[in-house]
């Protein structure tokens, strides 16, 4: 203690010794109109004052940090790191931080809610939180309207702000069909992933490679013409018009007129017509695409780009099942002989692939899926058999 006093005194002496070069008048704005300043006590007080203030604040903050420390589960940070950090709210929480907290703290919150992150994120979150990883099927935005500005009729000329939310204020929009897409690109503007672009004829196009199913566009669309649906459900009636058939026809070339042809043709009873609008029940739809060519107004959209045709492999046992289920009579053959499928008639619906008891029909879009399911089933059966034998 005494030594410190000595050092300070020595320092003061030096400062005082230098005093003759230092100005003898006021030091800046604070000390007004003083003729001279005692430099030594000034420096002393400055050091003491600043030092003590710094100490008080330092101790105070250290105390606060200790006293009010929040025990953060380190897993929350880890989870937050692997999330998409788009703060899109697709998980149903306010932001990524909130979801990370919920998924760590609450065992009932599934780890796969981060749709922008996809399967990889779900897996990583499950690993951190120790939950079972069940990758959610990806969902995409589907524009439920095909009536672009060329194919549809307008009631009046809208010359306002280029935004659907503004256009809809002008008597519900300029389109004759009050259910359809206005085409001013609000969805493209709000998409945080640049997945939506506007076509030349003012219809939004969803890039499924970029779409994460965050539902931002669904919320922003004033016409509610965007639906976020599972990726696998690729055959949809892309129309929301509840007008009577004749009216829809007048308004738009590609609207659903509620004729019911799809209902008749569907082997699985998926579509049903209600309020002059056909709607495909996605829990029943097997994505065969049979309704697509049968729709007189092309209102049904098939999101599977190409449907390769079916062919019969040598596994065929000639059971004639495929000939019975084929909706277009492309399969034919005698009993116990290898069947054939007429390539001109086949539409690649995949119904026979699913129906074949020995997985002898290949080539359709669902073939790999069906084969994998059959193989899994077989493995399960064998495992059960082994268990029974062991018992």
């Amino acid at each position, binding site marked *: 203690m005494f030594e410190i006093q000595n050092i300070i005194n020595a320092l003061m002496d030096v400062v005082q010794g230098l005093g003759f070069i230092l100005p003898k008048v006021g030091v800046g704005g604070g000390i007004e109109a003083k003729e001279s300043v005692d430099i030594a006590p000034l420096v002393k007080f400055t050091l003491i*004052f600043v030092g003590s203030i710094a100490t008080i604040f330092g101790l105070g903050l250290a105390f*606060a940090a200790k006293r009010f420390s929040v025990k953060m589960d380190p897993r929350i940070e880890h989870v937050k790191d692997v999330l998409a950090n788009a703060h899109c709210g697709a998980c149903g929480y306010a932001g990524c931080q909130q979801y990370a907290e919920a998924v760590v703290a609450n065992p009932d919150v599934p780890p796969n809610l981060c749709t922008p992150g996809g399967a990889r994120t779900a897996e990583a979150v499950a690993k951190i939180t120790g939950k079972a990883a069940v990758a959610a099927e990806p969902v995409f935005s589907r524009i439920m309207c095909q009536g672009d500005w060329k194919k549809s009729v307008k009631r009046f000329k809208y010359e306002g702000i280029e935004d659907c939310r503004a256009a809809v204020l002008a008597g519900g929009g300029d389109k004759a069909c009050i259910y359809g897409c206005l085409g001013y690109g609000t969805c493209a503007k709000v998409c945080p992933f640049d997945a939506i672009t506007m076509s030349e004829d003012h219809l939004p196009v969803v890039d499924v490679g970029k779409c994460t199913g965050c539902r931002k566009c669904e919320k922003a669309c004033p016409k509610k013409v965007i639906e976020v649906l599972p990726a696998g459900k690729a055959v949809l009636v892309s129309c929301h018009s509840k007008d009577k058939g004749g009216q829809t026809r007048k308004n738009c070339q590609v609207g659903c007129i509620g004729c019911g042809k799809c209902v008749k043709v569907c082997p699985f009873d998926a579509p049903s017509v209600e309020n002059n609008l056909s709607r495909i029940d996605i829990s029943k739809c097997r994505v065969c695409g049979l309704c697509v060519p049968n729709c007189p107004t092309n209102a049904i959209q098939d999101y599977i780009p190409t449907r390769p045709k079916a062919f019969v492999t040598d596994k065929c046992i000639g059971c004639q099942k495929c000939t019975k289920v084929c909706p277009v009579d492309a399969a034919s053959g005698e009993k116990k002989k290898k069947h054939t499928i007429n390539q001109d008639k086949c539409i690649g619906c995949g119904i026979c692939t699913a129906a074949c008891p020995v997985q002898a029909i290949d080539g359709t879009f669902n073939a790999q899926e069906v084969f994998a399911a059959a193989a899994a089933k077989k493995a399960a059966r064998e495992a059960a058999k082994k268990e029974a034998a062991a018992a």
Partner: protein
Amino acid sequence: MEHGFGKLFELFIAASLINNFVFTRFLGLCIFFGVSRKMETAVGMSITFTAVMVISAALSWLIYNYAMIPLDLTFLKIIVFIGVVAAFVQAADTIMRKISPGLYYKLGVYLALIATNCIIIAVPLINAGEGYNFIESMAFGLGSGAGFALALIIMASIREKLELAQVPRPFRGLPIAFVTAALIALAFTGFSGLITL
């Protein structure tokens, strides 16, 4: 007392409208342009900002009048006030996180931004320079906070509309925001002469 209240009211009006920090003194523009893009963040920022402003004005007044004037160290006010505000903001951040996490997520994110704002340092400095008393300092802080809140909310509501407008390409984003701010500043000059002291 009557006279005292009148003075406080004058101070409040002067700080919020006539000498609005953003529009007439052009301070705190960084935050002003940063968080005025959305109404929600603007409101959150305004509330946090006003609260921090009043409390830091009071704290700095206490330190200035009870420590710095007696010690003749008033020339240190800039550096000391910066320290006071920074320490207070940090403490508020820590304590708020513990006591009310809900509020922390709503408003706490703005605290770090506030620590380095120039309005928050300007208010204690003006208080010290003008020799306001304790209550007056707090009224001035409140007025400045309210003025900043007003500026942010006006700007946010305009910018939300601007999002939809067809702005010429070179002006999109920050340039049109600056033009808007300049026009509002022009309008705010209308308040000058509202109170004649």
